[in-house]
């Protein structure tokens, strides 16, 4: 079977700044891949490229055998199959939780309202948010908002989930509830690309860890290998700093 996601020589610049300098990567079906690296190493941009929120300058992205960087591709259709969750939640503040979750299915997939609401309620219940159904985002804690954002992405029934530093904006006390949701998803077999600074979480949940440095994948392997015997000096330095900061 074709891999879930293939990146071939993906290159992306913002003006003169090259953010991705030729990324080659394959993600298997049901694989959980964690991207680690310093801020500015290109993790977020990589995820946004997979979701076509950023057009790549050169290279190809192939999803389930389909080249989504080809010109004639319907970007809306591609995005419907890929869920993304952002660092800053990006919930729609003028809509209730239920509306936030049902907007995508109703407008992009044309699911009848009743069905979309039923499905949304199921998902909200599964993630312990049933009682927040009619609240507005600004009435929820950060952890609850981020869980709603995950549910919003899941309501589209995506094949692949992209998580962009989803706990970085959270109060430390609220990180746990969000990570446990992601662990759940990993166990259910969801294919995921996760950009994260939570090394403990990456070590325990990821099937594979990629270390990004200056727009390149410098080193990759099983979490045990990367975290216990990194080969590249820059990986070693990055991990040493993380340990010094008490983040692992």
């Amino acid at each position, binding site marked *: 079977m074709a891999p879930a996601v293939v990146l071939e020589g993906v290159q992306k610049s913002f003006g003169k700044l090259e953010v991705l300098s030729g990324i080659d990567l394959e993600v298997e079906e049901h694989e959980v891949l964690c991207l680690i690296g310093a801020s500015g190493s290109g993790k977020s941009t990589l995820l946004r490229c997979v979701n076509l929120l950023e057009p790549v300058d050169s290279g190809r992205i192939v999803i389930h055998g389909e080249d989504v960087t080809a010109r004639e591709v319907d970007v809306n259709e591609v*995005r419907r199959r890929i869920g993304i969750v952002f660092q800053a939640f990006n919930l*729609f503040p003028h809509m209730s939780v239920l509306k936030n979750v049902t907007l*995508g299915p109703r407008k992009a997939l044309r699911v009848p309202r009743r069905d979309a609401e039923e499905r949304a309620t199921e998902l909200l219940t599964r993630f312990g948010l049933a009682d927040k159904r009619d609240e507005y985002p600004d009435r929820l804690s950060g952890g609850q908002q981020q869980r709603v954002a995950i549910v*919003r992405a899941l309501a*589209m029934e995506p094949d692949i989930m992209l998580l962009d530093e989803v706990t970085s904006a959270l109060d430390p006390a609220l990180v746990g509830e969000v990570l446990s949701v992601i662990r759940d998803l990993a166990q259910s077999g969801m294919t995921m690309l996760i950009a994260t600074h939570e090394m403990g979480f990456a070590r325990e949940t990821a099937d594979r860890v990629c270390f990004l440095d200056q727009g390149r994948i410098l080193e990759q392997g099983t979490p045990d290998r990367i975290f216990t015997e990194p080969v590249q000096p820059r990986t070693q330095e990055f991990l040493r700093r993380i340990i010094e900061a008490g983040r692992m």
Partner: protein
Amino acid sequence: MFTVLALVIVTAPGWDDFRKSFLNTHLWWSSFPDIARGFLVNIRVFCISEVLILILALGIAILRSLPGPVFFPIRALAIVYTDVFRGLPTIMVVYILAFGIPALQLTDASWYRSQTYWSIVALTLVYSAYVAEVYRAGIQSVHPSQEAAARSLGLSRWQALRHVVLPQAVRRVVPPLLNDFIGLQKDTALLSIVGPVEAFRQAQIAESANFNFSVYVPASLLFLALTIPLARLTDYLIERDRRRFLASGGV
């Protein structure tokens, strides 16, 4: 302060003449019914143009917000439109349309010869240029991450605009929109120069019949009666937004 000012006015050499020509209370009352009837024209013109402006301006603002080089000609047109109609004095646009277009004698239809009709069109064109800018500021104030979130769900550009960006944008610009409408209410008096007998024109008629300016007092009060409540409503909405902003932690 006010006492001094009042004293200066009352002791002015022309005070007696002034009192006769502006403060004739008898004329206030006798001219009031006609002027009030004229004012109904102002209200009608105001209400119709307001609805048209809200629609046209939104369309222009959306065109101006279209991204990418493909839409450059459309954006350029929208920019020319706002530049021209914000730059022209309203009174000229009213003149040109209300006198110019009927003079072309394109049809015999009664709406075509109606100055009221063309005045509404003129006010709509001018005010849409202002209101489009207000809308555009609102659209730009919605953080791009909101559109990204909507697009990431597979919504089309139009769906993202319609369901996510515009509802937030419009909510934010309600106070400045009302502000523009206060201006519009006053500018309905411009109809007087091209013929329709609205409140100001009716007052002019009463003035020349009586050789007395007192008739402008009831006309002014009628305008105030409409604009002041709108001004208070604007203030209230601004204050409410500010309180909400503070309550939500104010990001």
